[in-house]
């Protein structure tokens, strides 16, 4: 049984560009949450998707947006990249309110 998968593994962008990160949830899971983890910090909640709608959002600007598809997979889009957006982006999936399982992450570097 495949766990949560994310792509790409690593990404290098320049300031002002746009990026799309992808996540496939664990089999049987219907909820996807996205987190940003800066070096040496704990993950920070960005937003959560359920039934193709954004259900909850953390303290992140509108430059961060997302989408969930009918097969429960999800995308995270970040526009107008800033140097401070450099981080490990984590996707977590769950079934309803059950335990969240994390993917391996996407390392984004903004130059």
């Amino acid at each position: 049984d495949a766990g949560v998968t994310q792509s790409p593994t690593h990404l290098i962008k320049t300031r002002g560009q746009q990026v799309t990160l992808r996540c496939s949830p664990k089999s049987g899971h219907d909820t996807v949450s996205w987190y940003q983890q800066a070096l040496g910090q704990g993950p920070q909640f960005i937003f959560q998707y359920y039934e193709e709608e954004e259900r909850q959002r953390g303290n992140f600007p509108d430059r961060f947006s997302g989408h969930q598809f009918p097969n429960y997979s999800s995308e995270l889009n970040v526009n107008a990249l800033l140097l401070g957006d450099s981080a490990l982006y984590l996707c977590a999936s769950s079934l309803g309110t059950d335990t969240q399982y994390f993917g391996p992450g996407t390392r984004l570097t903004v130059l």
Partner: protein
Amino acid sequence: EDQVTQSPEALRLQEGESSSLNCSYTVSGLRGLFWYRQDPGKGPEFLFTLYSAGEEKEKERLKATLTKKESFLHITAPKPEDSATYLCAVQAKTGFQKLVFGTGTRLLVSP
């Protein structure tokens, strides 16, 4: 606002030297407290969920306990492969599934 504080920030142990990691939390009604293990550059790996004060969970050399204000992760006779960052997170009963994380404890076990 929900908050999690972990201590110590870093811990160095000799192989076989048991110790405990602390997670203090404030939350508006606890739905669950979660422990994850994270290796460098990887996504968090789920360890335990605790739901109510007095609950305990064990897995190999790890044991997690919960009170109304804090949780402990006890590591008995650790091995070098236990070296990792251990993250604690809380989930409130109100709202949805957002996890609020601490900054983690970096554990290094020397042979």
